[in-house]
């Protein structure tokens, strides 16, 4: 594979701290080598900087050797279908643009860091400037595509339903001593620029407020950009005031559709409340000049009404982003939809694209740039059309989907057919 298609600069400035306190090299990491809990590379064992500068050396060496890495698979898939990948975004942060790859790489301000690692078996003397901090699974939602590791409510429900025997391991940030030590680390690591937090639901996770408060009290807020995602079920004015002290906020707002199916998928949210809070957050974001994005996790249950989110984004000049094309659970992949159902959605998406023409045809990699939000929307919607056209039929997974939905519905007392009557024949044929 071409170096241009595999190289990523992220391992020179980014790490992820997952729910168990385990360090991971990338927020987009996927694949079989992903360790949910690693006692060695863990915040309770080593400092983030030791992990980053030394333990990630092999990963950087592989990157410089042009090796295709399994953990980068989600990015390769996104690029294959024309969606902007994490790799492309991270390259851009170091000044490397794919269309000018070689020249922009040799011109990159990070070139000396790449050279250093090349000469030192992947080690780096660079610092971590871009963090993803997973705050654990404390959440007030039971989204159907989520899992116990990312939702405490879903974990409880799964245990009740017999889908899991044990609750997930404790969240690292439930340990106050670890949080305290981590904040001290953050205060001393030079050149920290971006902290991206995810939950659970960030706004109800005590560590979120604690970390931000301590950074603000240490007079560091004015130098730090904070990113986080909320599920649009919570509003706290005190958090808005705290966030406003930071240099910049990248606000992600999770929603799947602006129709009632969102209630089923993001159970137990209510679309009227979600819509109201969405408007409030957008107003607050405008007031503070925050960068805002709608965050989606499109599944076979929501793709047909996904354009309602893009309509809202178009109207409000927001961008829309999803981490990847959903891979797990497998039975919720978009590709589970049979061809005839896909064709109908393709037609609707094509119609949307015909009605929404962007100013620029240039590929947008900096998807947070509000000046090109409409081009980004068109580009992102197009990626779903590509995905629907090019991925293999996985409708053999429908019985697994139905089995899962029936099980959770037995606990929730709802029915997918209330929300998707047009899929009744399909779902009945798969055992509903």
């Amino acid at each position: 594979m071409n170096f241009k298609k595999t190289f990523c600069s992220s391992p020179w400035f980014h790490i992820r701290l997952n729910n168990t306190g385990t360090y991971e090299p990338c927020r987009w990491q996927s694949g079989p080598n992903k360790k949910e809990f690693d006692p060695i590379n863990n915040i309770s064992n080593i400092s983030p900087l030791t992990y980053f500068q030394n333990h990630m050396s092999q990963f950087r060496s592989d990157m410089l050797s042009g090796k295709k890495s399994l953990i980068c698979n989600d990015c390769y898939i996104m690029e294959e279908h024309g969606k902007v990948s994490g790799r492309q975004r991270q390259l851009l942060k170091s000044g490397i643009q794919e269309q000018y790859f070689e020249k922009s790489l040799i011109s990159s301000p990070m070139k000396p860091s790449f050279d250093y690692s090349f000469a030192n078996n992947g080690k780096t003397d660079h610092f971590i400037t871009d963090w993803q901090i997973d705050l654990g699974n404390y959440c007030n939602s039971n989204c159907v595509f989520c899992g116990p590791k990312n939702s405490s409510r879903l974990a409880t429900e799964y245990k009740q339903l017999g889908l899991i025997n044990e609750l997930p391991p404790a969240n690292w940030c439930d340990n106050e001593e670890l949080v305290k030590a981590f904040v001290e680390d953050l205060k001393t690591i030079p050149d920290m620029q971006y902290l991206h937090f995810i939950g659970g639901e960030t706004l109800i996770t005590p560590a979120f407020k604690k970390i931000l408060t301590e950074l603000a009290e240490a007079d560091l807020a004015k130098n730090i950009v904070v990113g986080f995602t909320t599920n649009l079920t919570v509003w706290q004015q005190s958090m808005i005031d705290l966030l406003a002290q930071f240099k910049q906020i990248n606000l992600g707002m999770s929603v799947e559709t602006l129709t009632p199916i969102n209630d089923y998928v993001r159970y137990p949210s209510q679309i009227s409340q979600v819509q109201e809070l969405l408007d409030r957050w957008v107003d607050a974001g405008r007031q503070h000049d925050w960068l805002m994005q709608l965050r989606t996790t499109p599944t076979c249950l929501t793709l047909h009404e996904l354009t309602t989110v893009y309509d809202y984004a178009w109207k409000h000049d927001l961008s829309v982003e999803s981490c990847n094309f959903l891979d797990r659970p497998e039975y919720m992949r978009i590709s589970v939809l049979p061809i005839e159902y896909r064709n109908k959605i393709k037609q609707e998406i094509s119609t949307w694209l015909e009605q929404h023409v962007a100013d620029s045809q240039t590929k947008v990699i900096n998807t947070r740039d509000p000046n090109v939000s409409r081009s980004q929307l068109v580009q992102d919607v197009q990626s779903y059309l590509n995905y629907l056209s090019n991925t293999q039929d996985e409708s053999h997974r429908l019985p697994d989907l139905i089995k899962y939905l029936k099980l959770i519905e037995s606990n929730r007392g709802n029915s997918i057919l209330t929300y998707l009557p047009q899929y009744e024949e399909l779902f009945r044929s798969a055992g509903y």
Partner: protein
Amino acid sequence: MKNYSDLLAIDPRLSFCLELEPVGNPEVSILIDKNIYGGGKLFNSISINTHLNALMPFEIQLELKNKIYDVNNETAIIIRCLQIDGIDLVPKFDYLAQYHNDHNNNDPTSYLGFNGKWTLTIDRPFYQWLHQVTGQGWLLS
């Protein structure tokens, strides 16, 4: 390019192309990265093709001189094309050029009709500059 060591084989030069069209017979001086490219009166369109260092800042400066407004009112230089590595900088980045002239007309333009200097400064390696002026977001160092 298969791996990082192949970077050694990359030509670190930018291809540069400038096309100027005269209106009347303007007197012009052309300075590209501190090198003078001709000068004097321009009777026909000219095209300058050269290479610049991709890793160094540089400046492109065009000067219209000795225009006598009462006599040759229609004298001017038009920048028909300014390309680096095939990327058009004019008219898209006209607004980044400084145009100091004897009429104090500083509107972004690629039509140089006044005595004075039009200067486009690439104040960092070209692709870092491009990153910034095209709004590509953060540039970590």
